[in-house]
């Protein structure tokens, strides 16, 4: 049996949302520890979007963002992406590295060590997300080495979206927004399991038999 994302019922969507909640909760804790600051998060959104509208999220397809992408391997396959607004990325690096970081906040330029720091943030967050998911489902889930792109939101998001293009006209994102104090959105966390993995995931949780 293969399930189609358009056929997912409310209960199944709730379960996916809850997975996102737990995973992102862990990631937020990790981020808070790293920054030594309070990090809040929104209730995750499970979004099923037509491709046409994918570009509207994150304030427009040509917004400059930092995308840190990790491939997920093991029992579950897919992509996990941490997307940061460019200002938030600079702020995050500044907080982590103190005086070493530059002050420019609107630019797409990051030094090598800043890029490395961003990748490491992505790595830690994705790992904590996946660890909790793995513990919950008893599935073996491993993240790959992180890769980074600093470019237009639409161009970056199209990478996981194309995976979905092969089998449908919609894409399913489990999205969680991170907020830090009053400086609004820190980033968006996207979990984009490969199509076959929804079934594995829902089955491991006993939602479908």
């Amino acid at each position, binding site marked *: 049996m293969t399930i189609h994302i358009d056929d997912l019922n409310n209960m199944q969507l709730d379960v996916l949302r809850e997975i996102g909640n737990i995973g992102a909760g862990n990631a937020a804790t990790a981020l808070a520890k790293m920054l030594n600051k309070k990090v809040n998060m929104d209730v995750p959104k499970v979004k099923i979007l037509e*491709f*046409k*509208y*994918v*570009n509207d999220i994150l304030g*427009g*397809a*040509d917004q*400059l963002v930092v*995308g840190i*992408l990790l*491939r997920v391997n093991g029992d579950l396959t897919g992509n996990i992406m941490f997307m940061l607004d460019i200002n938030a990325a600079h702020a995050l690096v500044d907080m982590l590295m103190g005086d070493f970081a530059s002050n420019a906040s609107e630019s*797409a330029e990051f030094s090598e060590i800043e890029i490395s720091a961003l990748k490491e943030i992505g790595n830690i967050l994705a790992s904590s997300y996946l660890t909790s998911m793995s513990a919950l489902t008893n599935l073996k889930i491993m993240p*790959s080495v992180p*890769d*980074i*792109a*600093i*470019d*237009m*939101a*639409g*161009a*970056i*998001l*199209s*990478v996981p*979206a*194309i*995976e979905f*293009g*092969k*089998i*449908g*006209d919609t894409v399913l994102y489990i999205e969680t927004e991170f907020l830090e104090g009053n400086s609004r959105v820190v980033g968006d966390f996207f979990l984009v399991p490969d199509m076959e993995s929804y079934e594995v995931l829902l089955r491991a949780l006993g939602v479908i038999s």
Partner: protein
Amino acid sequence: MDRLIKVGMADLQASCHPCVITTLGLGSCVGIALYDRYTKIAGLAHIMLPSSLQARNNSNIAKFADTAIVKLVEDMIKLGAHREKITAKIAGGAQMFAFNQSSDVIRIGARNVLATKDVLAELKIPLLSEDTGGNYGRTVELYSDDGRFLIKTIGHGITQI
């Protein structure tokens, strides 16, 4: 100001003069601009995948290079374009992430460009110019007055082809 028409991901639009057709944030996707300079009818497609034949679900014909180009040409002819006058310019097909793995997803940009060129050749639509490949996103604008194709990037300048 000319009419601005937006094309989403896996979407296509054709229009009469005067207009500007745009699509934002092309990554591995390819933007295919078709133009008939005699009637000034323009069309733009934002495709995601090379071929409808390899996909399990191919109901959205704007998603694939092969079906999208055929549909776009049809739409333009309906608006009055001359089939034999239509020319093409393409942009996109980048590789956004450098992932060192053999997955097909990674080389999808290059495959999209190849497929697009094959289809254009098959339909005998001349490809005037292209701005493809690289590892950066592109936002494109097609102007109906002279068929110029403007490509904006972040950190890689603005080009016109």
